[in-house]
């Protein structure tokens, strides 16, 4: 049984039906990519999973138990955390306080302390700046903080919404290196929404391609890497 399973999920973005019957699954400990052009419904899919938008049809299951339309607080408690698009750091909170808010739904003090350590080892820059305000960090540091904040929930599934957006290539590769390390060492499954096809196909083991709210292509990334033209034609990018 997969860790996360979506079956014919439909959800709205505002008044628009942005997700029109999506089925996908994320196996335990896997890295899965969700690709698609702007407006394909990627972010709405992630928001439906974490409880921020209501689903109108279909099922979302975590470990075989339905989680659709639970509150975000309950879904975080069940082990799903989100790294939002545009990072959405609390800019008037310090780095340490931002991390603490990731752990809001938890009560295990010792475990939380241990997870600060994990994040600081992963991103030493955050430890140096732990007393600085989130708003004073650079874009790359904010992305690290957003990932760290997600990890503080001690998720089994981390949802990442465009983690490469607006970052320099060298920062992007260090961030994806950190994500692979999280996946390898903690067994955290990752569902990554990306517009950068190359990056996603290089890092994930399985990918889904969305177009106007539906999945049009899916498969192991090895296979999709060979058919890159198909993927790119759907994405509307040329290289």
């Amino acid at each position, binding site marked *: 049984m997969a860790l996360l399973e979506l079956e014919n999920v439909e959800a709205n973005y505002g008044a628009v039906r942005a997700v029109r019957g999506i089925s996908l699954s994320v196996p335990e400990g896997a890295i899965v990519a969700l690709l698609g052009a702007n407006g394909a419904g990627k972010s709405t899919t992630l928001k439906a999973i*974490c409880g*921020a938008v209501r689903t109108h049809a279909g099922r979302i299951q975590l470990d075989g138990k339905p989680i659709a339309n639970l*509150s*975000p*607080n309950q*879904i*975080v*408690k069940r082990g799903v*955390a*989100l790294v*939002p698009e*545009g*990072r*959405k750091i*609390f*800019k*008037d*909170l310090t780095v340490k*306080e931002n991390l*603490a*808010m*990731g752990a*809001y*739904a938890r009560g295990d003090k010792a475990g939380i302390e241990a997870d600060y350590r994990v994040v600081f080892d992963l991103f030493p820059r955050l430890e140096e700046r732990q007393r600085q305000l989130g*708003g004073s960090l650079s874009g790359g540091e904010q992305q690290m903080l957003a990932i760290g*904040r997600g990890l503080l*929930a001690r998720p089994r599934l981390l949802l990442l919404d465009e983690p490469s957006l607006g970052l320099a290539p060298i920062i992007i590769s260090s961030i994806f290196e950190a994500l692979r390390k999280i996946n390898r060492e903690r067994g955290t499954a990752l569902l990554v929404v990306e517009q950068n096809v190359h990056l996603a196909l290089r890092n994930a083991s399985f990918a889904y391609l969305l177009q106007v709210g539906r999945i049009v292509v899916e498969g192991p990334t090895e296979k999709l890497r060979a058919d890159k033209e198909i993927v790119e034609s759907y994405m509307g990018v040329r290289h």
Partner: protein
Amino acid sequence: MFGQQVMSGLATGSLYALTAVAVVVVFRNTRVINLAQGDFAMIAAFLGIVFLKNFQLNYYLMLPLVILCSMLLGVLVERLVMRPIADTDWLTLFTATLGVYYILHGVAGWVWGRDTKAFPVTFDAKPISVFGTLVSEGHLFNMAWAVCIGLVLFLFFKYTKQGIAMRAVTDDPETAKLMGIPVRFIVLLTWAMAGFLAAFAGILLAPIVYVSPEMMDEVLVKGYVAAVFGGLYSIPGAILGALMIGVAENLAGGYLGAHYKTATAFAMIVVLLTFRPKGLFGIQARREI
């Protein structure tokens, strides 16, 4: 003379600060300008009389009971009035607090009467010398309480999980929700805090102004002026604004004549908003990334 005027101005200002801070705390987490903040304090003062006179309780037994009741009043207003309309626009919310203002005025008048009552506990006007300046015992007592409350708030917002979460909700309610912070509970907590601050405002002010349904009306307005002074988002700004107003109106009252007292607060806000429309500390612009 000047030193005394400043000291008693600071004492009055620290009471305005209790209202100003409550206005800021509620506004920045709910977008609501709470017109009923003064009435929370007025109800607290009446309850103080009830506990002291009718139940013959001692002051330090009365105080926690009043705090509890006042926090409960804040929570009830949130649950019964504000939450059902939480998704409407600011004008509806603002008008709802005006409704609460009139209801609480009416209820207090109906239960306890419209005439003013003396608070059973008063302080000696007997002055004490502090660094060569004479200050009345009551003023010292009020300032000491205000400082303690300020400290408690600082520690709460800086070191407790719920305090940090309240700031996170101020910063970005959408994201706070996505991170698993129960925003509705935090909003409830915000209104409880408004009640907590109102309890002190009411009890500390009661010996000075007499207790009546209208006792807080002027203080409320000055609390707003102080909150706007600080930019509506900043707690230190609101405190500074309140102290400045307290001192300025006291000096105006002392040197220009008593009837200039209230006008001073408004003159100050007009001047400030002319030159710094965003308040002393600036209303934070919501930065879009």
